[in-house]
């Protein structure tokens, strides 16, 4: 599908590095030669004749007719995120949950069974516990650290295996290649939430995943100022289903202004991710040696039981880590309340460092026993390491830990 006139019609992403791809893939040539394409703040598109209108409305996914289906600003963003994630195409959504829900709804139907990794974002967890069962979809879970639990969980009617890697907030990784091999042996599709890793660190589609979801709100947008999501895949039929089946009906459409900002974020993704990888590793190492810290979970720490998998599947360890302050929930609260530079806020992937207590904030909707089974301790602190100078972040952690 090519809705717009491309600036580099023969751009082949496989011939370029990730920075060049994010900057140059999908570039458009508009009527005025604008280096940055305009924001198409329009709800609808006119036709020169009823014939053209019939043609356009005959296949909403292949032309611009109405912005709930697609819009040139979204199309531009979708081409870029698709190239970044090594997919053939993408569908943009109003939020990460719009994308997660949309892709799951298009993968299962009543009577099917789906398997999810144990620890995951609480919104996704809610879909598995509430929404899917209500509509007749059977749900099971498995531990990505023990793929026997996956094999055991597979049923005749299993249609989807869904993982986060690394998972929110436990940082448990899923071996995407191994899981995809098992799934495909049984004719099951694999969906991966690649929000924590980002396409700079991991390319799940290259490892066998059938589709990838991104909360664009996080690292892709990267500045804490937008809400968005995307589904990326090599399966054009699936993407068409997502566009027509979920955007058209549920209407979780990304606004053109947001598509513009998300594209702007994507252009600096590589430089940002390199810095996040470096900063987070340094901070993980600092925390690990601190006597007041119980445990640090970060993919690129040699102490991580999944270190080898991390090295194999990720270019860098990413910007997310979680840890427990000795003394649990109360000690964690004291620590957080004394931070000066690091900000107490949910969300992640911003330019500034954000911390939160998962059990009390992002994962509070999940019952305690389910949280604990998934490895989410009450005192767990999730940290989205920012782009500040790492010494400044460490100095802030040091003075806050001194108060515990």
């Amino acid at each position: 599908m090519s809705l717009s006139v491309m600036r580099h019609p023969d751009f082949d992403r496989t011939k370029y590095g990730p920075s060049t791809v994010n900057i140059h893939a999908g570039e458009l040539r508009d009527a005025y030669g604008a280096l940055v394409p305009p924001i198409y703040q329009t709800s609808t598109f006119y036709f020169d004749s009823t014939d053209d209108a019939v043609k356009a409305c005959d296949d909403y996914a292949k032309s611009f007719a109405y912005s709930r289906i697609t819009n040139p600003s979204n199309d531009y963003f979708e081409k870029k995120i698709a190239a970044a994630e090594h997919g053939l195409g993408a569908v943009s959504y109003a939020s990460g949950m719009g994308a997660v829900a949309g892709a799951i709804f298009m993968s299962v139907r009543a009577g099917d069974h789906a398997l999810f990794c144990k620890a995951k974002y609480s919104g996704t967890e809610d879909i598995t516990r509430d929404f899917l069962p209500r509509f007749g979809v059977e749900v099971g879970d498995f531990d990505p650290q023990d793929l026997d639990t996956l094999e055991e969980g597979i049923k005749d009617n299993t249609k989807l295996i869904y993982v986060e890697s690394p998972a929110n907030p436990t940082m448990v990784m899923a071996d995407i290649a191994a899981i995809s091999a098992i799934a495909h042996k049984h004719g099951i599709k694999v969906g991966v939430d690649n929000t924590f890793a980002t396409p700079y660190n991991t390319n799940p589609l290259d490892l066998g995943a059938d589709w990838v979801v991104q909360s664009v709100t996080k690292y892709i947008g990267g500045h804490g100022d937008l809400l968005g999501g995307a589904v990326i895949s090599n399966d054009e039929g699936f993407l068409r289903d997502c566009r027509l089946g979920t955007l058209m009906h549920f209407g979780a459409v990304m606004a053109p202004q947001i598509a513009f900002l998300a594209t702007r974020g994507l252009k600096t993704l590589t430089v940002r991710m390199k810095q996040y990888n470096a900063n987070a590793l340094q901070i993980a190492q600092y925390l690990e040696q601190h006597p007041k810290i119980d445990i640090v979970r970060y993919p690129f720490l040699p102490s991580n039981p999944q270190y080898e998998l991390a090295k194999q599947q990720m270019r860098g360890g990413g910007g997310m880590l979680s840890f427990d302050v000795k003394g649990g929930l109360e000690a964690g609260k004291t620590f957080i309340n004394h931070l000066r530079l690091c900000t107490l806020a949910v969300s992640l992937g911003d330019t500034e460092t954000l911390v939160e207590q998962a059990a009390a904030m992002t994962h509070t909707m999940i019952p305690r026993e389910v949280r604990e089974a998934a490895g989410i301790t009450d005192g767990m602190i999730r940290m989205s390491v920012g782009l500040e100078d790492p010494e400044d972040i460490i100095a802030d952690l040091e003075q806050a830990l001194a108060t515990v």
Partner: protein
Amino acid sequence: MARGTATTYMHTGTGEMCYEMNKALTVPETFPIYLSSAYIFDSIEPMDKICDEGAPGYAYFRLGNPNADAASRILAAGDGTETGLVFSSGMAAITTSLLAVLRPGDHVLASPVLYGETFYFLKHELSKWGVETTFIDFDTQKPEDYIKPNTKVIYGETIANPLMSVPDLGHLAEVAHANGALLFIDNTFATSIVAKPAKFGADLVLYSATKYLGGHDDIVGGAALGSKKLIDTIRFYLGLYGGNLGATESWLLARSLRTLPLRVQKMSQNGLALAKFFEQHPKVEKVYYPGLDSSPSKELADKQFEGNGYGGMLSVNFKGGMELIDKLIANLKLVHFVPTLAGTCTTLTYPPKASHRDLSADELAAIGIMYGQIRLSSGLEDTDDLLNDFDQALAKL
């Protein structure tokens, strides 16, 4: 009394809601966009306090806007000045600042190797208002020999466009201050990541924010940074001439500045790699880049720069003229001819037809601009991809 329908639609959820938001338990993590042209006063007293006494608060967009202040605050902190202002373009920043401090009969001492429109303004516009400018080559002529009792401003660029020469900022400041003049430095090509002119005594640091500061080719803006006293003088003229940066633009500028250190460092790495590549290429006559050992500016650059590289701007003279450049532009796949610089993608421009098109052939020759010359702005691409693109384009010439 119940409000009528129209009144309900006019007065619900408008600025008054901000009073409610002031009582909220949380504040937004990112700064909101304040599009409001004016502010509500509960009584007359705050008007006096805000307008006359500088109390916190805003009255009217042209006199001050929170997003403009947020962007200015980041910029001033980065450059190490007391405060700053943002403008609707780099030229608005430059001209407003000059007009704020100059009077008929005053004199300006400037390098002729300046951004084309700055040169034009000094030479052809300010002269109409009775301000004379003497242009001297900062590399070969001594400013102390040309300064006059009525010199009010010495004006230069940290990395001069387009030959990438670096002046001795400390010496310019010394000469200016010894004569009661101000030193204005356009730091657009360097940014505070590469150099901080205020450290060397510059009184005013000027920017086209359209370039590195904005950094994504999607905003036009400018900035002036300096002491509170000087900025307050300029602020009055900004209010008078009205070259204000819009709220959305200011907000986008602040967004961009979060990644300025990362972008400029990467662009500097690419700039040096490109400069070295061209320097050894048989079709190239000369490369102008302050980071090259062959550059006469390298010593001053090393003395004055922050250790984050030499920026992303370089000029390349090819063995050929306009015809060769035209073919090169056609052969390039990734790099486009775009008359701007410092966006995320590497761009090429042709000074005789773009930034310096207002100059005569003689004026061009005088400042070393050739018809076989391109100016490059290195972007954030993977270095090898850029070198490969130029390699294949040059091979076809």
